[in-house]
């Protein structure tokens, strides 16, 4: 298998996983919240609260998945989706390593460090 096909296949796997998780989570969520109405704040001056706190970190999302929390499963799907472009950068880095292209090994590594650094440190 060529590196190109490998990149294509792993990307496809990530996308299918993200899609499956959001759809399955969505069905569970709709079942759990059947018939509710979504309150949309008409007053834009109202304080913005954002989503429930447990839906903001992977460490608090994971425990809720075991409890079949629809929203948590959807959020995991979103996180898998966010990871797919990062995976694409990692796979390109690997293919540059195979090609022994030093300049592009360095360039891909810089891009990866900026993204991962931001995920790990730039948070709170």
């Amino acid at each position, binding site marked *: 298998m060529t590196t190109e096909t490998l990149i*294509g296949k792993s990307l496809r796997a990530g996308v299918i996983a993200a899609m499956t998780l959001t*759809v399955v989570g969505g069905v569970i969520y709709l079942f759990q919240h059947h018939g509710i109405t979504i309150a949309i704040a008409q007053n834009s001056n109202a304080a913005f609260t954002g989503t429930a706190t447990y839906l903001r970190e992977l460490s608090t999302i994971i425990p809720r998945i075991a409890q079949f929390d629809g929203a948590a499963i959807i959020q995991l799907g979103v996180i898998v989706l966010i990871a797919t472009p990062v995976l694409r950068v990692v796979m390109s880095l690997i293919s540059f390593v195979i090609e022994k292209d030093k300049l592009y090994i360095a360039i891909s590594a810089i891009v990866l460090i900026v993204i991962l650094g931001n995920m790990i440190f730039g948070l709170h």
Partner: protein
Amino acid sequence: MDIQLLTLILFTGAICAGLLGSLTGLGGGVIIIPLLTLGLGFDMRFAVGSALVTSIATSSGAATAYLREKVTNIRIGMFLEIGTTVGAVVGALVAMYLPVNVIMLIYGIVLVFSAVMTVRKKNTDGNTSPADPLAVRMKLNGSFPAKQGTKNYNVHNVAGGFSLMWIAGVLSGILGIGSGALKVLAMDTVMKIPFKVSTTTSNFMVGVTAAASAVIYLQRGYIDPVLAMPIVPGVLLGSFIGSKILMKVNTKILRIIFAILLAFLAMQMIYRSLS
């Protein structure tokens, strides 16, 4: 609003966003933000979070349309990503201190610009005049398969393109959109890259740029699962179909409709931000 109806509306909107986003290389965020804010009355911050998700889904959905990517120039994409990812982090941090109406105004201006970029004169063949020496050194020049056989192209003004990419990154971090319009402008107009290559390479970059700021938005609670649930599958489906179409048909009429729609939304958004 009833949750089933909301899901249905968002799913339909998401398919359109993915389709148009991948066809034009602009990313799907430009459609999702007005749908959520102007159409459904959601807070701009939820719209920005959803737009980030849309941008990534457009990018990854388009990428999976082909197992072997022969058109996307990964070297150009990766090199320019240095500018956009750093910019995106700066933008996401700046956005915290910007009032919502300023973000809406910036967004309106970007929409006007996106409309113009959609109907631009396309550079189909690529430019074979002598390349920027930096492009040669960076191995940016490439080729792509066309009906008449493989076409070669040379890349120009690398420094100019790179500086525009930094601005595209900052805007992307502030607005949640992939800033595809600026990316396409930089590659198409400044670097003289043929449109199929610039569109697909922009699709690749939109996802990476959005991922760079997505975690900040997730942690701030801007990414809502109720909105993400129909958006993710819808956009993935739309962008998969869009990139299949891109290589086959002439999308001129679709682009004109898209441009008019964007111009209309831009006026609405600017009006809203000023009133």
